[in-house]
């Protein structure tokens, strides 16, 4: 029944590997930049707060596909030669997803009350001990479900790199489909694979949400 899939399985799975690599770079870069963006969004220094806030609000109102195109057009101008779709896609994902992760981190930072920090100081803990044992672990546990959810969204978003010709999972399926004309099984297969991965991810996210609720920290 899935003969067009089995016949091209290694080619398709190679595409899934490209998707996984793109997701890995997008997530590592996006989360790292997101931590900084989140800090900037609670900064009291105006010259940090305003530019970053404009960057966040601007990108969150624009379709990701357009951002992918934009970087694909602007990168050759910056580096002075043509660029492969993969690095260009990585840069656009990091810049784009960091705005979403940044908002999650901002919300996480803001859930820490000054009472909690003061209570920790009153026991004689230093600033770094407070961060190490109290504020960072609590904020992290509160943010974890949203972080996992946004990671799933990012993973799904990588399929949009299709538009600049990156041979990732979806593009490879559509290349095979052009040759074999077996759309139901090919796109059905792609859908099932995405579903399994993302469904497991969403269960993990829900697990931590329940755990946090039971521990009364959410």
């Amino acid at each position, binding site marked *: 029944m899935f003969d067009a899939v089995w016949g091209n399985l290694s080619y398709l799975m190679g595409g899934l590997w490209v998707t996984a690599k793109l997701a890995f770079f997008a997530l590592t870069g996006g989360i790292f930049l997101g931590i900084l963006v989140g800090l900037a969004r609670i900064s009291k220094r105006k010259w940090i707060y305003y530019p970053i806030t404009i960057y966040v609000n*601007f990108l969150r*109102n*624009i*379709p*990701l*596909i*357009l951002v992918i*195109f*934009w970087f*694909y*057009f*602007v990168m*050759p*101008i*910056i*580096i*002075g*030669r043509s660029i492969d779709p993969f690095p260009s896609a990585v840069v656009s994902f990091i810049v784009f997803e960091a705005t979403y992760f940044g908002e999650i981190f901002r919300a996480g930072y803001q859930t820490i009350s000054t009472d909690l920090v003061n209570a920790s100081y009153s026991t004689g803990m230093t600033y770094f001990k407070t961060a190490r044992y109290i504020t960072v672990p609590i904020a992290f546990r509160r943010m974890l479900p949203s972080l996992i959810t946004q990671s*799933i969204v990012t993973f*799904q*978003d990588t*399929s*949009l790199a*299709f*538009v600049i010709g990156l041979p990732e999972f*979806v593009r490879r*399926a*559509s290349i095979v*489909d052009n040759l074999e004309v077996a*759309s*139901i099984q090919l*796109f*059905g297969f*792609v*859908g099932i694979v*995405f*579903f399994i991965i*993302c*469904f497991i991810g*969403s269960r993990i996210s829900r697990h931590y949400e329940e755990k946090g609720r039971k521990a009364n920290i959410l």
Partner: protein
Amino acid sequence: MGLAYKFDWSVLWRQPYGMWLLKGLGLTIVIGLSAWVIALSLGIVIGTLRVTQYRLVRFVSTTYVEVFRNIPLIVQLFFWYYAGPMLFGETLSREINHISGLNFYVAIIGLGLYTSSRIAEHMRAGFASIGRDQYQAVLSTGMTRVQMYRYVIIPYALRLIIPPITTEFLTIFKNTSVAMTIGVAELTFQSYQIDAETFHGLEATTGAMIIYLFLGLGVVKFMGLIESRVRIRGLVGR
């Protein structure tokens, strides 16, 4: 700046390109609004079915939400566009493939179904935030369960979830851009098309970004008006 790139911003208004962007914007708005009608009506129904007392109904509606949420929109559109007609059998599928503007309708339906699953999730959260005593109070007035949902609970939940619904409404216009992958000439498609003709994709996509930004501002303004109109008095922080 490495390459000697000469900016030419006139692609944003020079004909025919200015008209292309304008037409693209028109299509983006039409697809977004049409898909929104599907998404909102279907989302409300499915969100309500998820909290009914019938186990089978709950299972089916929950599966619906999980399937549509966990598969990327682009894959869903490809499936409906390329595989969808085949699902109707050979003769009928040939008929369907002859419909002019098929991709346009597929985009609306696909985006509508995708977004409906997200609205259903928000509905569920809205129901959950309504206290048990509310339900009991309504039932004690002699309303049936259907009447309770129709006249009290659903309108109440909808007013509660206006902020996340606003986000979804914004997102649906951004997501119309995915329709370009099945060849719908909406705004993103047109800006890419300008690049193909003039090699000034940077200016064209920058222009399109600004247009999306204004579209988003319009949506926020509109939803703000709605929210202030239907606000539930006496609730804090709204």
